[in-house]
């Protein structure tokens, strides 16, 4: 149960972190990113997610934790579809599964 909560919170938070970072990147002048509150919100969420990752690594082996992290991309696909109006294409879904398969191979190769 603890593991499930860690996995879900870690991946969801990482998704939203990248959404806020993406929001802050929407400027021509890259220095302005540092002035955007979205950058800091994204950064804080990112740190929280990394913290949960550290906790998770104490609970389950690295080889399991690693492919599970790819769950983040699933949430990101939904978040960017809902909030950024990005399309969910067949190719994106296939690409996501290919990446997940690769992560499983890497994990099993340990």
């Amino acid at each position, binding site marked *: 149960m603890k593991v499930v909560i860690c996995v879900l919170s870690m991946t969801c938070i990482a998704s939203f972190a990248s959404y806020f*970072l993406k929001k802050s990147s929407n400027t021509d002048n890259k220095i302005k990113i540092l002035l955007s509150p979205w950058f800091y919100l994204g950064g804080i969420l990112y740190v929280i997610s990394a913290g949960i990752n550290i906790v998770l690594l104490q609970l389950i082996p690295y080889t399991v934790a690693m492919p599970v992290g790819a769950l983040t991309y699933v949430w990101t696909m939904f978040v960017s579809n809902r909030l950024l109006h990005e399309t969910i294409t067949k190719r994106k879904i296939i690409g996501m599964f290919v990446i997940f398969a690769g992560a499983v191979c890497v994990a099993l190769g340990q």
Partner: protein
Amino acid sequence: MMKGENILKESLKKNGKGIILMSISALSLSVGQLLWKLADLGSMMGDIGSFSGVMAVFLKVLPGFIIYAVGALIMTVALGYGELSVLQPVNSMSYVFALILSAIFLTEPITPLKVIGILVIIAGVILMGGSSK
């Protein structure tokens, strides 16, 4: 073969800059994680009750967090160059870098299955790269 080449070209044309920057960010993530691994925090958890114990753990974790922060900054710049749903999965390149780094610094062996995994992840990233409108 031609088709594979086209997918690669299309991918680089649409999201090349974002993918390269995201890959650099992924490298920072794996370096950060490597530093945490090398910090061997497990052995310090016994002292966490005291202030000096907390400070010691904090100082050990700090370099990894700084590199993570730099990675986040590079990632943010990268995300400006394409769709989020395409570029975020490029983060999985950190698995590739983690394997290479742990082979070098932790002398963990690279097995054939790991090499296959690396190639499959890179193929997935290239596939995603060409998938935006």
